[in-house]
């Protein structure tokens, strides 16, 4: 990687992010192209490249406490435009994960609960059924109520389906989740 030589001077968060994302964040020359095209920029505390700069100067708390990575919609506009081939969206995934594991609260209250539930359903059934996903996720009855008019319409329009059996070969799923989690190189191991 092109950053190899500069590693010694880099801060520990920057190094961790580069390692986990396998992206050379230090290649960024602040051209601002990623920020200009980001559909979520207005809502973000810092733009993606500002976050990179903060990482470089070791402002870890500001990086991990920012809403930037949580609000990234994973649209990949920045990633395909960056003149230095940094997959910025992938870096956002990693920053978000580190923030989460270090106990920074997500500005999106439902974020981690939703994705953990989603993963759990894949682990156990192999496929997502939208009805059971939403039923399990909306444990607050008020939520269910506000969604019920939409739910009824979707039902009438034939867009809801009761749970199907999912993947037959459950053993292979179990194997994937167990051995992938054991795999040090793939797991973030924070």
């Amino acid at each position, binding site marked *: 990687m092109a950053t190899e030589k500069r590693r010694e001077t880099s801060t520990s968060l920057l190094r961790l992010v580069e390692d*986990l994302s396998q992206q050379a964040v230090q290649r960024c020359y602040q051209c601002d192209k990623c920020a200009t095209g980001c*559909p979520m920029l207005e*809502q973000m505390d810092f733009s993606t490249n500002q976050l990179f700069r903060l990482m470089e100067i070791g402002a870890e708390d500001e990086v991990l406490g920012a809403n930037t990575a949580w*609000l990234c*919609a*994973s*649209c*990949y*506009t920045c*990633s*395909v435009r960056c003149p230095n*081939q940094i*997959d910025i*969206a*992938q870096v956002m*995934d*990693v920053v*978000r*994960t580190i923030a*989460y594991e270090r106990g920074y609260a997500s500005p*999106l209250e*439902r*974020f*981690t609960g*939703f*994705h*953990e539930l*989603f*993963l759990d359903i*894949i682990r156990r059934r*192999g*496929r*997502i*059924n*939208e009805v059971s996903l939403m039923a399990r*996720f909306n444990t607050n009855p008020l939520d269910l109520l506000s969604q019920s008019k*939409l739910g009824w*319409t*979707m039902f009438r*329009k*034939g*867009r*809801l*389906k009761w749970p*199907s059996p999912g*993947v*037959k*070969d459950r053993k*292979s*799923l179990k*194997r*994937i*989740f167990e*051995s*992938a*989690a054991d*795999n040090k190189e*793939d*797991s*973030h191991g924070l």
Partner: protein
Amino acid sequence: MAYSFFPGCSLDASAKSYRTSIDWTLDALGIEVTELSDWNCCGATSTHALHTPYVDAVPARNLALAEAEDRDILVACSACYHRLQRTHQALVEDPVLRERMESIIGQPLTPKRQVYNLLEILASDEILKQVQQRRTDSWKGVRVGCYYGCLAVRIPGAEGFDDTENPMSMDRIVEAAGAEAIDWPHKTRCCGASLSVTGPEYAERLCDQILEMAQRCHLDLLVTGCPFCQYNLDVVQWQRDSSQEDKSIPIVFITQFLGTALGASFKEMKFASNLAGVEALKRRMET
């Protein structure tokens, strides 16, 4: 050439009309598909939202199944396509990753089989010619905005089947089907689908921007190949109060659109399951 078709979870439920219209249209065009047997969810946003070690392993199981069936994979959902294609590319480029994935999956993963997007197959010269020859006049004079969204055309580090900034595959399909594909600015603007459950107010804002641009460009309808874009843009309009109904823009799956051009009825293409602006569209088509 026959493909192993990867439907993904949405095509079985909220995007049922996509599945139905795909089956009808591919059959009409003589494109042979068999559903990939015992496929699993691609992982969607959830395997990478918190950077899990499953991000390649979960799609890789499907790639291994297709290897075993000895067929290329055809994917209709943009999100599934993105995840499967990324893992496929990573396996081609990185033999170390491949070895690791093979040991996790417990099956060989020689990535000789390709992952295709439905749009690239439908936009092939041969299919377009067939469409031009066989199409009815159903969509004559209709101003169509092709909405590609994010995930079908933006795969970092990959060549891709279409341009990332100004994709044209759907435009070509729409033109061949006898309508007017309008050049408009928000073809690839994000609809925020990945935030639609966890931060709905943000997703809504992005949808509004896209729909407003569609209004300003006087588009009669939007076509899409993504079940999440369809749902997101459809529901946002449905949730507005009814005084806005005449401003609604139908969000139509590309195969609902193409099937109709090839002579399928509104009912066969399950237009009744779309939410926004479909009554008006039906009236317009019947006059």
